[in-house]
């Protein structure tokens, strides 16, 4: 059992960087298309919903609807970017492309690979979340310089959702199963966690469920930072996101070991 754990854990604190750099090199070749692709979707929501629906809705939580929505879209885009990178791109590298197999034939461990993939997915989440935040700030929907406090939260949100998606990746027999994760987990979270409307609009039971969901914690930190308001329970929210990063990381590493090294 001892050797099994060693294979699933990172070998040291720096091996993962080689995996991150591999993915960065691949991404660099298609960077422009990737950035536009990652930004287009949340931008459309931000302006479509924010400006269009904002006319009807008026002010929300003491601010314009589009400014309210901006925080939700930053968190959501980090969630989506990290998730998609993990369930589609990392799955391809693990499965059809056999990239992971090649890496495992070196002195790298499965834990190094998973950690490198998580860090990479979090980097892409940072890029996507920050991109929207910059646009929102330039257009005056977010407050400078308090908006900077959101940056580390975006990274942590990326890690948490990459880590959760890694569990799905480790279990999925094929791409076809990822749609369930998207429709049954991610999409409900969008509406339960206060991304597009205040959570207080929900029935009490849903509100209680929502406070356990990772996207709620991300939004509760990102939105106040962007609106220039003080955030409450910072330690709790950061701690929750850390837990959502760490526990699925170990679970997925163990599941990958069973899948790839039996």
């Amino acid at each position, binding site marked *: 059992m001892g*050797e099994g754990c060693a294979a699933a854990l990172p070998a040291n604190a720096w091996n993962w960087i080689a995996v991150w750099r591999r993915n960065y090199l691949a991404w660099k070749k298609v960077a422009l298309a990737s950035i536009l692709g990652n930004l287009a979707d949340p931008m459309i929501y931000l302006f479509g919903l924010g400006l269009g629906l904002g006319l009807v809705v008026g002010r929300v939580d003491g601010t314009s609807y589009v400014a309210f929505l901006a925080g939700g879209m930053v968190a959501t885009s980090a969630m989506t970017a990290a998730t998609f990178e993990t369930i589609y791109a990392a799955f391809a590298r693990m499965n059809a492309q056999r990239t992971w197999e090649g890496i495992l034939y070196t002195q790298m461990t499965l834990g190094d690979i998973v950690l490198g993939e998580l860090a990479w997915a979090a980097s892409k989440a940072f890029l996507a979340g920050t991109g929207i935040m910059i646009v929102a700030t330039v257009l005056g929907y977010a407050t400078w310089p308090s908006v900077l406090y959101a940056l580390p939260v975006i990274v942590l949100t990326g890690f948490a959702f990459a880590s959760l998606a890694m569990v799905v990746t480790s279990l999925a027999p094929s791409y076809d199963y990822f749609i369930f994760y998207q429709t049954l987990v991610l999409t409900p979270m969008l509406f339960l966690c206060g991304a597009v409307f205040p959570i207080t609009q929900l029935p009490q039971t849903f509100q209680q469920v929502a406070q356990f969901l990772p996207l709620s914690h991300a939004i509760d930190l990102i939105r106040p930072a962007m609106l220039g308001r003080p955030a409450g329970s910072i330690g709790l929210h950061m701690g929750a996101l850390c837990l959502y990063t760490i526990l699925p990381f170990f679970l997925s590493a163990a599941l990958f070991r069973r899948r790839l090294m039996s």
Partner: protein
Amino acid sequence: MFSIDLSGVSKTYGDKVVVDKLSFSVAPGECFGLLGPNGAGKSTIARMILGMTAPDAGKITVLGVPVPAMARLARRGIGVVPQFDNLDPEFTVRENLLVYGRYFGMNTRKVKAVMPSLLEFARLESKVDARVSELSGGMKRRLTLARALINDPQLLVMDEPTTGLDPHARHLIWERLRFLLARGKTIILTTHFMEEAERLCDRLCVLERGRNIAEGRPHALIDELIGCEVIEIYGGNPHELDSLIRPYSDRIEISGETLFCYAPDPEKVRVRLRERAGLRVLQRPPNLEDVFLRLTGREMEK
């Protein structure tokens, strides 16, 4: 000390025994072959040597360390040529080597220092900036081989290194492998090509359903188990021919529509067959295919 030492190694998936109490050793500088048909357990053994799969029973030592317990340490000294290409198709030749070197903890400068000799070895100097997707099958294999050498390994583990290549590309790989052996590298390779095993391997072990059914030097095995000329006959009813030539044969094997006759005096058999029209008769020296047929009653590649 052996480069690889397996003793009493078994592996079962469900109720299927894939490797069955297997033992063998590979000395430094040796080329050792695992020969067997698909499903004989060759790839599983290769994975166990790399510590990718833990055996259910038995002991494995590779480059002096126990595997899988210290497989990571062992893999620092191993180069792997996997059965299926896992090069990065979107990367160039240069980028593939650079990225793979980093997995061994090499920095860019270190990889760049060894790159010219690897490219020369793989005969890919002119392709250094070509994408992998533009390379031919043989070039991809040579790049995989060069990549496996990036950490200057003592031991090379190759799973079906020439499967899927055309004869020309295959001969070039063999020539490159002989070059590595001449430089003192140890190679363990799995193959179902008899010719490959015969040409490259100092010693080999013949596998069937995970069991070691014969082990030795290729030519010693051939001499010991066959030891005479072989006549292949097809184009007639093999069972009828069997009774016709049996008195002049040591042994007769029938596989599909081909009859294999092991004849100490081939001329006598040929005389008997001369009166038959429409037969195709081929007389040849014995090879490992005959050894496998003798041991298992079946052909390997058909």
